[in-house]
């Protein structure tokens, strides 16, 4: 068995065990809350990496897909009385459906035009949410969204102990799914079309269809994360469509390293904790954004391929990376 295989398996096992132990060791509600928020952002950032990093689709509507998940889940759970667990799934489905609509023009466009269309889409969703205030609560948002229960366990108890594990499980499952997708033939084809569109067509890859599929898949995970966000915070507010939310999550993708899935997950944790940690330092509650921005510039200057490239530079064991 190659040494790197052992190392990698060990590292993943260690991270999983640590992740499971966190709420046992840390009883502070606020720290647990930060972990939960970081996990949610990690799902959004990693799923964004699928369409942006792997497929090279300049999808700037990803946070809107997250928002679609937030509102769909909140509305389904609160107004329609659907079980919040099911409502979360519906959030993912609605985000996928929204992605299919966005994909219609996007599959025929390139570069900056994709940015424009997807960005316009996110503004459109925001305007729709604000204008339909009798249903969505407008700028006030929706409050008192019903929360989840499992075999009679009330998640509002135990200082977010239960929520932590739900968020952690969602992150693990979505990361496994995303990694799996990138390793399939489909994953290969989206990297191929990112590298060279015309050449992809010449090798029989249906680029329109692959773009549609990748946008729908990537939106699904963002939608589920949005659904859990609404269930956990028990609110759905139009702030999720803010440019600052998008900038924050996009920086997680870029600082973490595109085309890696793990990179954005790591960056989501690091950036959430640094940003929140600095907020508690006296006099830095506003200035922290500047510090974080400077840190991002430095990371991207020295590690243009993101934080994940630091790990990739570690020497690999003998026999690593055998060709198939």
């Amino acid at each position, binding site marked *: 068995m190659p040494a790197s295989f052992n190392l990698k398996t060990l590292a993943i096992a260690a991270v999983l065990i640590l992740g499971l132990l966190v709420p046992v060791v840390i009883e502070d509600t606020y720290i647990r809350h930060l972990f939960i928020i970081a996990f949610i952002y990690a799902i959004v950032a990693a799923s964004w990496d699928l369409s942006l990093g792997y497929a090279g689709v300049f999808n700037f509507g990803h946070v809107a897909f997250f928002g679609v998940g937030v509102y769909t889940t909140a509305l389904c759970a609160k107004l329609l009385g659907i079980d919040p667990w099911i409502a979360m799934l519906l959030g993912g489905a609605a985000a996928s459906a929204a992605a299919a609509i966005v994909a219609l023009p996007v599959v025929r466009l390139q570069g900056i035009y994709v940015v424009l269309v997807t960005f316009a889409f996110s503004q459109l969703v925001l305007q729709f949410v604000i204008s339909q205030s009798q249903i969505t609560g407008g700028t006030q948002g929706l409050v008192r969204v019903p929360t989840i229960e499992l075999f009679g366990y009330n998640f509002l108890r135990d200082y977010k102990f239960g929520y932590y594990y739900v968020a952690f499980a969602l992150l693990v499952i979505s990361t496994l799914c995303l990694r799996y997708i990138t390793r399939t033939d489909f994953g*290969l*084809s989206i990297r191929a079309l990112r590298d060279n569109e015309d050449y992809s067509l010449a090798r*029989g*890859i249906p680029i329109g269809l692959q773009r549609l599929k990748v946008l729908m898949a990537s939106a699904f995970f963002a939608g589920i994360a949005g659904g859990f966000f609404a269930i956990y915070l028990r609110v759905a507010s139009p702030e999720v469509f803010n440019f600052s939310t998008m900038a924050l999550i996009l920086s997680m993708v870029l600082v973490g390293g595109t085309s890696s899935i793990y990179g954005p997950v790591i960056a989501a944790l690091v950036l959430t904790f640094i940003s929140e940690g600095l907020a508690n330092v006296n006099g830095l509650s506003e200035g922290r954004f500047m510090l974080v921005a400077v840190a991002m510039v430095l990371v991207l200057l020295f590690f243009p391929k993101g934080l994940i490239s630091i790990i990739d530079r570690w020497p690999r064991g003998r026999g690593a990376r055998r060709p*198939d």
Partner: protein
Amino acid sequence: MDHSTHEAPLLEVRNIERRFGALVAVNDVSFAVPAGQVFGIAGPNGSGKSTLFNVMTGIPFGPSAGKVLLEGREIQSLRAHEISRAGIARTFQKDAEFGTLSAFENAYAGAVYCAGLSGAQAREEAHKALDDVGLSNDRRDKAAGDLTVFERKQLMIASAIAGRPRILLLDEPAAGLTRPEVSDLAELIRTVNGRGVTILLIEHVLPLLLSVSQHLLILNHGAVIASGKPAEVVRDPQVVEAYLGKREAAL
């Protein structure tokens, strides 16, 4: 041109035209390619050679008028990736690879999406194609963008034949190669042709074109000015004037 052959040609192009506004880039071009042939296409710069490949494959655009038939079946209205899957594999003058994918993955993509193979079969086909073009084993997990110019030429042919095409369209494959590499390329083209793949070859390097082609077609200003046996075509006065004349004068 001889239309009297009884056996249907593998590929037939009928009165193909491509217009860009007032400009006619390909003007009423017709020809037929029998199975198994290496069919050379030459012409001065801007004569419409690459545009001809573009309209035949639909990448990035199809013809304004005319028909393309593969084994008697019209394919000009298929979508570009369907034309590739139908059995027409093409290469491009530049960037004919997926740069961040490994050499193996490049060939594997062809086996999966063109030939419709999967799993072990696709891997086997990819390795076989790489064997055929002679890309050494220790280079196969390198990113395609990191290969040498000649290795990338090998790879673009490997990824095409991994898709089990009926016909391979090579667009100036000798561009950027040294003289010994050009003769290696000629050998490679013969090898691929020897395995039953019909080849359409656009080339500026005349010795290569003449040494491998059984038929030669010359384009000028988007129209066919000569078509026939290579040795005869290069002596055609119209061809000498339009294309070779300038070369020879320069020499």
